């Protein structure tokens, strides 16, 4: 009986070890969004390309979509841009852009030069919508369901790895990326 008690420190060390090893593979910069499961914040902002058009949260309902926060000053946005173009053209993903704390002329120029994967862009030059969304660094990409509820947030560049999210579990391959999440929400790729 006494002998078994001697193993208690060892067991505690093993349990702590498991937590520490798990901690090594966690990315502390990936914060859970406080907005998951909540409606997209209300806004009324100008369209990036057509300043006379007002955009609002009501235009984000009806379909499962991606909302991509980007800016011309953000190097990672440039990195992911060609993949967003591909998603829009070949996968038929509907992407709404939020041009975050940027200059209109630069942003319009950027879309002309690198291609425009967005259905439309919201011009959020003051960052007010970004603040309401809890954006802390561009690029960020949100999955919005047909009811306009935020279902997922990805911080950082969207690439093929993030889009498909191939995971091996118990010997079988599973897809857990943005695509799988959108399909689970009833996304209908065309």
């Amino acid at each position: 009986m006494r002998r078994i008690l001697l193993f208690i420190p060892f067991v505690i060390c093993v349990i702590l070890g498991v937590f520490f090893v798990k901690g090594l593979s966690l990315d502390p910069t990936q914060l859970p969004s406080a907005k998951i499961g909540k409606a997209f914040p209300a806004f009324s902002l100008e369209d990036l390309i057509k300043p006379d058009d007002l955009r609002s949260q009501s235009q984000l309902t009806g379909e499962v979509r991606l909302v991509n926060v980007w800016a011309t000053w953000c190097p990672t946005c440039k990195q992911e841009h060609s993949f967003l173009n591909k998603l829009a053209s070949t996968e038929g993903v509907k992407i709404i852009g939020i041009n975050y704390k940027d200059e209109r002329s630069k942003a319009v120029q950027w879309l002309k030069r690198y291609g425009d994967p967005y259905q439309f862009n919201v011009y959020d030059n003051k960052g007010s919508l970004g603040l309401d969304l809890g954006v802390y660094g561009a690029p960020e990409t949100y999955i919005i369901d047909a009811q306009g509820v935020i279902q997922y947030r990805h911080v950082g560049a969207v690439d093929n790895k993030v889009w498909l999210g191939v995971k091996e579990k118990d010997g079988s391959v599973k897809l857990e990326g943005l695509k799988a999440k959108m399909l689970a929400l009833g996304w209908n790729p065309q």
Partner: protein
Amino acid sequence: MIKHYLWMVSLLVSTSLFAAIDTYEFSNDAQRERFQQLSEELRCPKCQNQNLADSNSGIAKDLKDELYRMVTDGQSTQQITTFMVDRYGEFVLYKPKVNPMTYVLWYGPFGLLALGAVVVLILARSKKTKVAPKEQAAAIEHEQRLKDLLDKKHD
């Protein structure tokens, strides 16, 4: 030598310039103190492990501007923290709220202390009961020897 000295002085000057970047004007000291306190208790979401007061990142600047607006508007601390948590999650609070998710954080140390106390008590107790018969035997032996000695003297 003088060159080195000048170089060191220039370093001092550069930091004081940095410090001057965000100065906010307050109409009274109470507001200034609240702003100071809140910007130290709120965490920057981008540059983790820094509070808003210490951080120079863009988002920290935005949040400080927002904080300044809310403090000068006369909003309560409760209102301000709710605003921040609604957008950035509990993560932004360096002083987390007491709720079921943070019970372990707040009460864990006391729990561990109590656990330690219990372990110490149990150990102390088991030692006592173990040692007692030996001591008793020793005491009996002592008494016997004393008695023997006394008896010898009387003889």
